[in-house]
């Protein structure tokens, strides 16, 4: 597989449609927990994008989503002003998403090549879980910096820290979303087995085209028989 997937119609469509899927995942309230708290599926969609499309296309899809949002489409969560969400206290989470999709996708591609078969659910989940430290590693320090909070330890016990605001409330939900993303991704890979090996679908199509051309250009047996008689 080449380092960067080719710019085929299929790759462009997959990147664009997954960017649309991430945008769709932020529209509230798609699902609510048993307690009735609505949850955003943004993390799920970002991890799913990496797991399904691999490193470069996943990265491109998330970047495209961010760019569409900055251009003014209301695709960020809470319908916030796009530039405000980008440079505001919670911007770090947004910046981390393309990186997270890239890393998750990179690992997912390695699973595919080593196992040489169907991508398993647990392997996908392992790859997806890598996204959580990446998202928090970018998001939490930026939250701490822009609001001038301590990251880890508070001066006195009971004081809020960036971890307490920007990480702990989301860990369980994000973990469950990664599990869900892995389940969905493994279903997708079962149905579309060549999706991760970026170019193989294209090559399969061009191989078919080659075959068709060979059949068309080869002298048919009837023609040969007619020439002989």
């Amino acid at each position: 597989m080449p380092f960067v997937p080719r710019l085929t119609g299929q790759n462009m469509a997959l990147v664009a449609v997954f960017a649309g899927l991430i945008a769709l995942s932020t529209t509230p309230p798609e699902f609510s927990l048993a307690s009735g708290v609505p949850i955003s599926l943004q993390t799920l969609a970002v991890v799913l994008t990496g797991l399904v499309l691999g490193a470069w296309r996943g990265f491109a899809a998330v970047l495209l989503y961010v760019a569409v949002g900055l251009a003014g489409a209301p695709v960020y969560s809470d319908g916030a002003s796009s530039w405000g969400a980008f440079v505001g206290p919670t911007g770090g989470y947004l910046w981390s998403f393309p990186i997270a999709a890239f890393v998750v996708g990179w690992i997912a591609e390695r699973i595919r090549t080593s196992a040489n078969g169907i991508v398993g659910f647990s392997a996908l989940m392992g790859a997806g879980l890598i996204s959580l430290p990446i998202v928090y590693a970018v998001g939490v320090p930026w939250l701490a910096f822009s609001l001038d909070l301590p990251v880890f330890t508070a001066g006195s016990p009971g004081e809020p820290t960036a971890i307490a605001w920007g990480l702990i409330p989301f860990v369980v939900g994000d973990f469950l979303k990664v599990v869900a993303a892995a389940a969905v991704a493994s279903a997708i890979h079962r149905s579309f087995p060549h999706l991760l090996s970026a170019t193989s679908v294209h090559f399969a199509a061009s191989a078919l085209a080659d075959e068709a051309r060979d059949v068309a250009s080869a002298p048919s047996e009837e023609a040969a028989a007619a020439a002989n008689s």
Partner: protein
Amino acid sequence: MYRDRRTPLHRAPAWSKMLGLAVGAVVVFQLNGPVPMAIAATTALALLVSTLPTPRATLRGGTTLAVFAAFGGAYHWILGDASRGTEIALRAVTIVLAALAVNTSTSADDTLNVFLRLARPFRRWLPTAAIGLMFSLVVRSIPEGARILSQSRSAARARGFSRSPRAILVPTALRTVGFALSVGDAITARGLADFNVEDRR
């Protein structure tokens, strides 16, 4: 959020506003003390007002971030450092106001053109036409995804699985991938993906 108006900020080129926002965001982190921050916040407010925003769009775009600013400020107030709390809250508010000013005065087309210019050095791998095509595909795929989601949800409800995320998410994702592949075929069939034909055999 964008309204077509004729204010100085509307007429300024989009790249200058983005650069200004970036520089401004760096500058406000260098300022210390409530008084300089109050000046910065007033400047940002003046910039926002100069773009003649609609009150509804301003409220919708700024509320969440203003809440964050209030929390950040309240935290230091509670700790007894009122001037620091004011400074932090004002800093967050400044950034939000300046960002809103960029949003209300810059059209999607102008922003997109800046992105396309930024991507030009990479046009050997990612032609400008491809980016434009993908942007419009994103916009097209959102309603399609919403349609697929609502159909999957009705199907799950009909089978009595309306509370199961799996019964909704898996069919939605599978059909979305199917939709993407068919769009990809359509792009290929129309020759829209032939950016580098000579490279392709």
